[in-house]
């Protein structure tokens, strides 16, 4: 599967996709690497080309709880787009990861200077957020649990 055809990049028109990729550099993370810490500065973002990244929340006295994993084609990080530009989750590589890495500030600047490009990128990020929100709400239903709740 091509990361360019599917996932976040696949949702962008070719012109906007090519422009966004001019800001990209290649990045590799060994397994178990922490990519960013919860509440840290959201100054970059990534498009995952291969591997698996776990999003987690720090829980005092326990190991960080994994709330979701992201893989090939997924956008890693959207807190860079909205103030206060702080990560609301942490991210750690479950497996070795290759990704396109972007500095947030030049991308935000390009979005502000070119409204068509900015709208396209913002819509794609919003779509990612909407899909993750929908999936999270569905998971809240505890669909696979005992019918009617409780235990059998």
């Amino acid at each position: 599967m091509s990361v360019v055809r599917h996932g976040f990049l696949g949702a962008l028109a070719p012109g906007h996709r090519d422009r966004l990729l001019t800001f990209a550099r290649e990045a590799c993370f060994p397994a178990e690497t922490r990519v960013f810490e919860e509440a840290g500065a959201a100054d970059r973002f990534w498009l995952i080309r291969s591997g698996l990244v776990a999003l987690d929340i720090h829980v005092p006295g326990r190991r960080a709880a994994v709330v979701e994993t992201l893989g090939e084609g997924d956008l890693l990080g959207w807190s860079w787009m909205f103030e206060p530009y702080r990560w609301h989750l942490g991210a750690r590589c479950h497996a070795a990861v290759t990704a396109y890495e972007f500095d947030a500030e030049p991308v935000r600047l390009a979005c502000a200077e070119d409204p068509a490009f900015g709208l396209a990128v913002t819509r794609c990020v919003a779509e990612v957020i909407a899909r993750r929100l929908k999936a999270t709400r569905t998971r809240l239903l505890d669909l696979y649990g005992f019918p009617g709740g409780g235990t059998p």
Partner: protein
Amino acid sequence: MTVPVPYRVVAHRVDTPDTATIVLEPADAALPPFAPGQFAMVYAFGVGDIPLSVCDIDGPRLAHTVRTVGAVSGALHDVRIGRTVGVRGPFGTGWELSEAEGRDLVVVAGGIGLAPLRPLVLAALATPERYRRLNVLIGGRTPDDLLYCGEPWQAAAGVRVTVDRAGPAWTGEVGLVTTLIDRADFEPPRTAAFICGPEPMIRATAADLVHRGVDPDRIRVSLERTMHCGTGHCGHCQLGPLLLCRDGPVVGWTRAEPLLMVREL
């Protein structure tokens, strides 16, 4: 077909804390052959009967995975090897895998919805030359709730698994099963999809597949209502114009979608 036929329990395996698989062999005459996706009415004598889809078909032998949620399922979950149960069937529609020949296959299972899809996957693996790529995507509540772990077909099929809630030992994927669709390898216009699980999961999965470009006519889903007679007479399993024990449980998405959008149908 309407009178229960005695079958003997020849194997029993606990799959998860609340789920077990029982293997049945005819005590005398066997029922007609079951197709993947069809179901049987299985009696725990003296307790009652419930519909159970077949999770394995081996000649006259049938296997059913049963989750304990009530008196009958509890009795069947705990049944001992050597005991006799009653079986009626085969009932309902099957997956009709043959209509998917030459296509990419996307099989999406949620929770115990993997049980009726298991024989479908086994059939596809047995004749790989008839299909293009096979994607089996499985969602579960927790790692402890996953069915058929370690069975050889899971490796052969390149199964992808995700769970809603992970413990510290889990290094796999976490998230709704629909997230796996983005990472599956298929060409939407040349894809046939098969879905079974809780209804909200079926709706979300089918919607995502259609969004990706899969033809709704090529998506088949297995629906669940209160099956009782199995022959389309009692009406307990009615879903609008359908009697699911006869016209289902496997239904095309084009037909199922508008019915599932009607509340309390």
